[in-house]
């Protein structure tokens, strides 16, 4: 068994609202997998089905080789979860909550707990009602990271953390990766996903629209070409060229991977003064999938 999470054609509706409409998701052991999508795409619903909190309407979901609904409690011994919007019991202190959640999961490593509290600079003696959103997030993160679970389910874990703490969080994720843990990281912070993840699944309206490594996804998509030329060039109607924008001798366009050689040949023939050709950032990939006109951001029409 090398796949920690295997989801096939997963369906879930709430009344008439379809939350998941045939979602596929595969996370293999030891990888950091980013689960990307805009608000309401179905990320949290998927995680809640994987946690056995929600019952699936159709499709298949396997978690750590078991059934997330029927084997929930035994599977939970092997995973830790950080919810997206962390709510805590207002009258309990952060330290108490970390201990409670750790004990309910079957024990907590006191040394790791202490190290994480120092790393995230949390005051564990404060009552939860006094914590800011970022501090509540830290409590949930420390409780999850202090466990020795093989799978971490993190639902938008850095929303509310300041940039310094976000950096600490990235260090932690890299440590966990080295320790061989599997991490499913739901997020809409793309720079974070790009920096941390081995593979990415993008979902939209309850379906996966793209899945693979960031490099693969770039490979399959269009490159952005921005060139300053000596003379005119004709790119209109060339297959594989999109969103062409010619202003005098300046040419900007998107080019399919397969058409790149052809286009570069034409540009060279016209005489290149400057040329940048780069793969899209994850953010641009993301926007291409989710903006209705399917244009790449930053490429004026």
């Amino acid at each position, binding site marked *: 068994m090398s796949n920690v999470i295997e989801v096939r054609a997963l369906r879930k509706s709430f009344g008439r609202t379809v939350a998941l409409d045939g979602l596929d998701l595969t996370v293999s052991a030891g990888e950091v997998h980013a689960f990307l999508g805009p608000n309401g795409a179905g990320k949290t619903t998927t995680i809640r089905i994987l946690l056995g909190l929600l*019952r699936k309407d159709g499709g298949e979901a396997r978690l750590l080789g078991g059934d997330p609904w029927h084997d929930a409690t035994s599977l939970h011994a092997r995973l830790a*979860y950080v919810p997206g919007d962390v*709510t805590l019991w207002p009258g309990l202190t952060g330290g108490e909550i970390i201990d*409670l959640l750790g004990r309910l999961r079957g024990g907590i490593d006191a040394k790791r707990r202490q190290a994480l509290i120092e790393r995230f600079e949390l005051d564990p*003696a404060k009552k939860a009602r006094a914590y800011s959103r970022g501090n509540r997030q830290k409590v949930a993160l420390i409780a999850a990271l202090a466990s020795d679970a093989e799978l971490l389910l993190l639902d938008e874990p850095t929303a509310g953390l300041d940039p310094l703490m976000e950096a600490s969080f990235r260090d932690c994720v890299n440590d966990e990766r080295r320790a061989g843990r599997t991490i499913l990281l739901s997020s809409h912070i793309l720079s974070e996903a790009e920096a941390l993840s081995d593979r990415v699944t993008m979902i939209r309206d309850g379906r996966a629209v793209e899945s693979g490594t960031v490099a693969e996804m770039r490979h399959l998509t269009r490159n952005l070409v921005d060139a300053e030329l000596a003379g005119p060039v004709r790119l209109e109607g060339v297959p594989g060229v999109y969103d062409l924008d010619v202003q005098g001798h300046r040419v900007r366009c998107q080019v399919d991977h397969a058409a790149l050689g052809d286009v570069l040949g034409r540009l060279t023939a016209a005489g290149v003064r400057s040329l940048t050709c780069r793969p899209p950032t994850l953010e641009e990939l993301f926007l291409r999938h989710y903006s209705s006109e399917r244009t790449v951001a930053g490429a004026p029409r």
Partner: protein
Amino acid sequence: MTASSAGLARTGLAGTGQLTRLAVRRDRIGVPAALYVIVAAVTGTAYTFKKLYPTAAGRAALAATGEGNPAFRFLYGRLYGDSLGSLTTWRYGIWAGIFASLMTIIVVIRHTRTDEEAGRLELVGSAVVGRQAALASALLTAVSACVLMALLLCITLPLVALPAAGAAALALAVGACGLAFAGIAAVAAQLTSNARAARGIALGALGVAFVLRGVGDSAGPSGPSWLSWASPLAWIQFTRPFAAERWWVLALPLATFALGVTAAFVLAARRDLGAGLLPDRDGRATASRLLSSPFGLAWRLEWATLLGWATGYAFTFAACGAAAKGIGQLFGTSSALQREFTRLGGQAAIVNAYLAALMLLAGLVAAAYATSTVLRLRGEETGELAEPVLATTTSRVRWALGYITVAVAGTVVLMAVAGLATGLGYGLRVGSAGHQAAQMLGAAFAQLPAALAVAAVAVLLFGLWPEAAVPGAWTVVGVAVLIELFGQVLQLSHWVLDISPFTHTPRMPGGTVTAAPLLWLSLAALAFTTAGLVGLRRRDIG
């Protein structure tokens, strides 16, 4: 900006009007309901007394009993004169004041500290709203409610043929008492950053006021009867409605209100949004050994509430039990009631019926406690606090059983306290404390299966139909209360009376105990709970 609104902005009151309209809208059900209960209770009491004690001799006898029994003086306060109005003021003056104060405390805290703690005031405060506007609008809402209540009482009491001047005095005294506690609540809201604690401080002040005047009122001429003057609740009867009104006494609660409001505004101006004047105490950096199971969590979150309930039970039932000794004379003077009670078996039977009714009341209120504790499960679920617990190796059933165990244990504790306190209160006055305590403990425990069956319905709904759990469970509690308190009076059919589980519990002392209904009720409670837990295992969470 006009000159006046610029002036308002400088004093920090800009936006008070809009916030008050918002507060009135949010209170459009709760406050009218509270006003209805207060006005109906006071006017209804006057009407009932008029029917039950039509003669001056009957009223004089009732007044003599009321004045003669220290337990009654503790519960209801002082009696001036024996007119219908005097008796109404005695029986419901202080209690109307308590209800009015509860209303203003809840309103003031809700629109100040609760909103502030939840961060809603921050949102509102970023608009063109002055720093003091929330406090001002909360106080305006409380004042409006009190004024409306006083007006209603001024109208309704003369309808049952009470003199207008006395009616006005009683209405104003009760309204002013509500205002005094609005002022106290306004100060409490500035002290702590925690709305629950702020409400606790104000309610604690109300409790202290009740006990102070209870001790003062029941002390008699040789005791510390001056203590009553320290309690805003006693000021209602010191105004002497219907007995040569002393209008100047009204200045006391109004001055308390003015003082409280001034202090609150001064304190509010000196603190930051979200902060309290009392420092937030730090807690433990690590969890105690107890806090390592769902039960430990439920106990940690609920024990303070249970302690509050148990304390209230101890005081109330000790006083009610102590009042039992005089209960025969109280009813014996009304000829209609006398006939009814003689039919039931005379003096001893009257005391037994009264004690049994107390235990029924204890059972009904304990059922409400158990229901609210069970419904905490639903609160944790919708508040997204169940999710982190259920994502651990804790199964849903174990999680739910944590709260259910606390609810059951709490109900047992409350009934034990009710039985022992009633038995001791009565037993110490008749000289057989041990015997009475044991007997009343048994009588209290006889109500347990019924109370738990009511709470088990909450578990059933929570498991099978979570959206309906809160309204449904409280409807069940409400129906049981209505059937038990008014079923016989309204002469409902036996079929309807049988719906309430309390119809089937033995009336002790004096009644006969049969095991069958207790067994059936226990089995029903167990079956409802099991069905609810099975439903919980099968449904979606959240």
